């Protein structure tokens, strides 16, 4: 813990506090100020929202949707984003990011539900989403959808070559998918795990025609569920796990697959691993600064490491931390209970600033576009 080096929000006089509150937008680069933050959110009465905000606090849209969403996937060229329904939702929402108009409510086919994550192909014509085959609960499928005339149409489906898939991302070639098969079987309309004693979690690389390229498991950790991913520009894949076993077991909660190498545990100090309370939420990689960020909301903790040396850059409390994404300065992090923050990582001392965004009620993931 390098708290002493972390000036953070402390040490500001009341005068500078007022200034910071009034001008926090000025701490952002021009590029970051224009960045659109997309996330699922709730309002205080528990209604579900799909929202877009500029990082200076300007609300671009806030659209009420009928079911809670999880990840958001922005279209590579059009001002569209799909807010993906959270497990076991059968709805996702295609939103016009200029005004928040609901363009399409995408329904999963019969006997399928969304798992909360999807990706657009770089052409912008195809969308792939992780789904559950509820006739064979847990059998992982990728729904393949084609975008035509501004509407997503179900085209076909592929196997994820595993059980209970969660996040998926592209490798830098834009054609190879990396899929986190969480290994847990759940039924339609339920979030209850059926097979904790026989979980089969895996990290799969596959091409977008469905061909399996590799399938790896974490050694000796049958109850460790691979859930979330981040991919660096050099093809390094990092996975964050949610361990279903005992609270004091020693599980590889973070793993890394460097190009051409097998998936292996990312080195963590015991104290850090224990602070995560067996639960990783969102991951993000900063390619220019070669940093990895992780939110651990059960442990109420945010971590940033050097991706290459695995040295700890930041290890700080952040209540109910949720989404994380990279901006030129460093990382933006949201929270279910408190203010969103910008962590400026450009100098050795990471500097935190509270952003002028609404506080709390931010859901698991955020995307910046």
């Amino acid at each position, binding site marked *: 813990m390098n708290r002493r080096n972390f000036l953070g929000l402390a040490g500001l006089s009341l005068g500078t506090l007022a200034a910071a509150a009034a001008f926090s937008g000025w701490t952002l680069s021009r590029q970051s100020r224009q960045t659109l933050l997309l996330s699922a959110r709730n309002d205080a009465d528990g209604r579900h929202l799909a929202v877009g905000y500029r990082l200076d606090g300007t609300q671009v849209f806030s659209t009420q949707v009928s079911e809670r969403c999880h990840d958001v996937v922005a279209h590579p060229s059009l001002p569209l984003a799909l807010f993906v329904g959270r497990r076991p939702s059968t709805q996702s929402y295609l939103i016009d990011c200029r005004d928040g108009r609901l363009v399409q409510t995408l329904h999963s086919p019969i006997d399928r539900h969304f798992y909360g994550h999807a990706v657009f192909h770089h052409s912008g014509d195809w969308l792939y989403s992780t789904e559950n085959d509820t006739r064979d609960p847990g059998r992982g499928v990728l729904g393949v959808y084609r975008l035509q005339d501004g509407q997503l149409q179900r085209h076909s489906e592929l196997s994820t070559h595993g059980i209970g898939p969660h996040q998926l991302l592209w490798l830098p070639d834009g054609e190879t998918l990396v899929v986190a098969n969480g290994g847990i079987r759940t039924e339609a309309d339920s979030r209850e795990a059926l097979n904790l004693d026989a979980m089969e979690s895996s990290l799969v690389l596959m091409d977008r025609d469905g061909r399996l390229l590799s399938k790896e498991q974490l050694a000796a950790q049958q109850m460790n569920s691979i859930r979330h991913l981040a991919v660096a520009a050099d093809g390094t894949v990092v996975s964050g796990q949610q361990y279903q076993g005992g609270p004091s077991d020693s599980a590889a909660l973070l793993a890394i697959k460097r190009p051409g190498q097998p998936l292996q545990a990312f080195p963590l100090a015991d104290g850090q691993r224990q602070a995560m309370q067996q639960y990783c939420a969102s991951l993000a990689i900063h390619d220019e600064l070669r940093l990895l960020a992780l939110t651990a909301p059960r442990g109420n903790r945010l971590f940033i490491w050097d991706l290459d040396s695995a040295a700890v850059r930041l290890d700080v*409390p952040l209540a109910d931390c949720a989404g994380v994404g990279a901006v030129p300065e460093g990382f933006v992090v949201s929270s*279910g209970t408190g203010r969103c923050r910008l962590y400026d990582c450009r100098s050795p001392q990471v500097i935190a600033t509270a952003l002028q965004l609404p506080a709390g009620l931010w859901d698991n993931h955020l995307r910046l576009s």
Partner: protein
Amino acid sequence: MLRTPLTAALLALALSACSPSDPLQKTSSALASGVLLPAYNHWLSADQQLAASSQAFCNANADLAATRLAWLNAQSAWSALQPLLVGPLSEGNRAWQVQFWPDKKNLVARQVEALLQSKTALTPADLDKASVVVQGLSASEYLLFDTNIDLTQAAQKNRYCPLLIAIGTHQQALASDILGQWQSADGMLAQLQSFPNTRYADSQEAITDLLRTQVTGLEGMKKKLGTPLGRQSKGQPQPFQAEAWRSNASLSNLSASLNAAEQLWLGSQADGLRSLLSSQQGELANRIDNAYQNSRLQLAAQQKSLSQLLADDAGRQQLNALYDSLNTLHRLHESELAKALGIQLGFNANDGD
């Protein structure tokens, strides 16, 4: 307390500095100095007494009853921290170091015996490197109260005393480290009193954290009662899954936790979370007052230990009524109080995605 005109002047200056007066900051600050810090100090002093008493017992300067009493006091001081677990003690594996519960597989007994098998002359340094299972109060409870161990026998005393002393030392060092982290510059106390800081961007975040830890504490109390009652295991009572079953301290632990939760609600000088409710919200405040009183009276009325109550229908009925009362208290905080205060308790930590 205003002892001198200078203090009064400084206080006036401090108050004017946070004008316009921020009720959230005032409450957070008052709870930090009036409720939380005293509870952490009490825990440190109970751990110091346990360490001293363990040492004295092993040197034949105290009897077993005195050390057992010191253990019960340390356990009670730790129980009082349950609704107050914000900051350093809630981070890393520190709470595990104090107590290992739930212990479904009786790891405490097994690991203590395994440790003593491998280290016949155990030192405090050995214990610092050992598993959290054997570092805390659960392990010393096993030594002091388990029916298979009789520390009045010289051979057993020789066998177990090094561990008893090492645990006392470890707990005292841990508590002293935590107190240091509370009281240092930009420590936990300061972080609950002036904003922004490295932990909280504003006073709203601090109050949110305090309510969150209180709700978590109340939920934990339900779990401590519900687990032995078998509420998670088809109604089959599980007396050995209770917290502190060896010392029969389960119910007195609950009383200590409840009392601390109520202090967070009331504050030491009517300046707790309750003071943040407006006069229009008086009805909710009264219901929460009544819920505390109801749980408190039910606990105070128990003459028997948890394991005795679990043994028959009438006892289980009383425990289920107590559970329902704690449940009411928990729900009042989690939903109605949070909403009345405009606080979001968060939903990512328990999301499971």
